[in-house]
């Protein structure tokens, strides 16, 4: 990371005579200190191994729930209490990162252990098993994910109150991430798992990172395409929490429509669909957009930003105030898009209908297999069953 401007580094001044006199004494002390340090590190290593062993013995792996290219998911339980279920995600040794851990695993562990919130999947423990495999002990969420509920148009019926309850939980999760300066960068219904009590939990932090320092570019190859905001599609390397808010808005739209709002098949097609569905980015509604590296002109079908009537006609079931919220989340210019905090401060939450209680929300027994399916995925991957066209390989390297 860049050197923080808040910390000033003073030049090391030459040692003063008094210092030189004491130098021999110091070196001895330093060498003895080094010995002690080596001993301490050895002790620490033993301690770490013991700690790891302790953690590992706390859990018992039961059966395999699913296996992907990136991870194997097991159902497990606490060895002292067989009724307490957990999901154990064992990260495979990656071919690309043979000498270390894959980026996904590091990101997942780094951010999940910092974030403790009812709407974010809990990481109970991390331990390494033989062959140095990394195991993440995650909260067990047996009721599938939000995408399953959205797609089951015949079996599951829900209304605005349910949408509001789900959006509230998602909004809290994203707000909490942003309050702690973490960008999730892969929000989609697939990654919103549902706990036994109906609570929606944001999962899969494989693409997460903390907010960037100034002048430090980030990759724009993140977020599953259908939920990717226009600034990332146009290759912006400097962005903020607004990218997650766009994804939240897309999930909101999908909850209402019960089908993806702008399912593009390529990046350019995705931009085209956004132009049609949300509006065409132009200098008038997004100053400076033409200077973005990936800017593509869609002058022929230029519509400008879609107006309110259009959104009301498509998303009228959310109510007029809900449409306002959706429009502010889907603002083309990320600077005009509302922040995660503003989403939760919106007055939509206080108008009728009140959100459904979480235990009354529609459920679908996804079962453990579905959780296995969801967790084994790598960030940015989509189920093959959904559409093969959208699966893609991610480029994590900083260009």
């Amino acid at each position, binding site marked *: *990371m*860049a*050197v*923080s*401007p*808040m*910390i000033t580094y003073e030049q090391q001044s030459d040692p003063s005579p008094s210092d030189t006199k004491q130098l021999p004494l110091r070196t001895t002390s330093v060498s003895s200190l080094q010995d002690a340090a080596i001993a301490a590190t050895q002790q620490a290593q033993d301690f770490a191994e013991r700690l790891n062993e302790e953690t590992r013995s706390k859990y018992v792996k039961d059966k395999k729930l699913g296996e992907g290219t990136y991870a194997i998911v097991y159902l497990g339980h606490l060895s002292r209490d067989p009724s307490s279920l957990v999901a154990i995600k064992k990260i495979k040794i990656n071919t690309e990162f043979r000498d270390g851990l894959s980026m996904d695993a590091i990101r997942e562990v*780094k951010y999940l*252990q*910092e974030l*403790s*919130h*009812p*709407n974010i999947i809990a990481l109970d423990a991390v331990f390494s098993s033989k062959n140095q495999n990394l195991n993440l002990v995650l909260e067990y969420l047996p009721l599938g994910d939000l995408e399953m509920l959205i797609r089951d148009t015949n079996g599951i019926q829900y209304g605005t109150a349910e949408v509001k309850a789900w959006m*509230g939980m998602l*909004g*809290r999760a994203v*707000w*909490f991430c942003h*309050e*702690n*300066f973490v960008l999730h960068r892969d929000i989609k219904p697939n990654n919103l798992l549902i706990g036994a009590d109906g609570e929606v939990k944001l999962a899969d932090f494989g693409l997460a990172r*903390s*907010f*960037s*320092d*100034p*002048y430090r570019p980030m990759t724009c190859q993140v977020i599953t395409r259908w939920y990717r905001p226009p*600034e990332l599609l146009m290759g*912006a*390397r*400097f*962005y*903020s*929490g*607004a*990218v997650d808010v766009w994804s939240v808005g897309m999930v909101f739209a999908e909850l209402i429509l019960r089908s993806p709002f702008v399912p593009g098949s390529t990046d350019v097609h995705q931009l085209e669909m956004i132009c049609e569905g949300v509006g065409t980015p132009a200098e008038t509604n*997004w*100053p*400076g*957009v033409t*200077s*973005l590296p990936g800017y593509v002109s869609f002058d022929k079908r230029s519509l400008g930003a879609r107006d309110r009537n259009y959104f009301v006609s498509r998303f009228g079931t959310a109510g007029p105030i809900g449409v306002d919220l959706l429009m502010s989340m889907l603002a083309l*210019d*990320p*600077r005009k*898009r509302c922040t995660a905090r503003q989403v*939760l*401060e*919106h007055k939509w*939450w*206080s108008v009728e209908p*009140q*959100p459904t*209680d979480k235990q009354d929300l529609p459920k679908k027994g996804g079962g453990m297999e579905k959780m296995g399916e969801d967790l084994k995925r790598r960030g940015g991957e989509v189920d093959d069953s959904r559409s093969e066209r959208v699966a893609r390989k991610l480029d994590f390297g900083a260009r």
Partner: protein
Amino acid sequence: MSKAAQKHGGSSAPPGQDDDICPVCKSARYLNPNMRFLVNPTCYHKMCESCVDRIFSQGPAPCPVAGCGRTLRKQRFRRQTFEDLQIEREVDIRRRVSTIFNRREEEFLDLRNWNDYLENVETLTFNLLYNIEVPETEAKLAAYAAQNSDSISRNAALASAEHDSTEAAFAAQKQAARVRREESLREDEEDRQDRLREDREAQERIAQGSTAKVTLKKSTARRKDGAKGAASSGNAGPSAAPAFEIQGLKPVAAPEPTKAYDPFGGLRIRSEYFAQQRSCEHPWLDKAKNDPAIVTGGYDVREYCARAMVEAFAGMGVFVDDEVGTGGGQAAATERAAIAAGTDNRTEDVL
């Protein structure tokens, strides 16, 4: 019933005999066979429908029975359900008391309390029935109703819901029985048709002169198949209907009155050590604030400043010893993780 009594004549006078003469206008059923008697639950004096129309059509009027004189309204006159007016009155009173005292057994801690409550209610009812200390009792009733209006309406809603669900279960049972009956009727009919057809076929074969043995074998085989099919369809019928009903389940407790929805889930994140300014001035940040290449994508320097402030103050006011002592568990662990992560960031900065 009174008509039947009339036919019997006066020799064995049934108890309803008096009822055939209206105590107010003295007209008899003999003259007016369609005569109906009504009572008013205020005084339970009986009179015929035409008397009610005549006296009370113009509005409230005193009861025409000598010595009563209570003001009655036409609207409240109704046909009596029980022959004994004393019982009619008792039922009315009990119904009224039970709509107010509608506590349920599961609301009480133990059986003793529940029984005490029942006894108190019974004492009140008894007082009302036999006109003992009526004003005091009425006052008690009114006071209780006013104090417990919430629980009364809640229990009433519960009771009506239970009533509805039992009704629904009963209807479902009836429906299932009907389906089963129809199913079995249909099967019988099919069996009969099969047998008739087989007989006919056998007769035809015999008439054509083919070997009777073979047809017999075939027909038995077919009959067996048919029976198998019928049996399987017979199994499908009842299994489609619910296997059994669970009745007498403990009803779910009424939910707590809901609080206003808090979109933040009761969590507020605010630092007590610093306040975030609208902008943070530093020459190093100027380019990040104004460069279109950085700003157009939505990058916001204020987020960086906020983070710098939070990290600068992270861990302030956190005393690990205290949290370990009180068993702060998860929260403490998260806090420590956050601090550790913070220090990691800083080392990266230096590197």
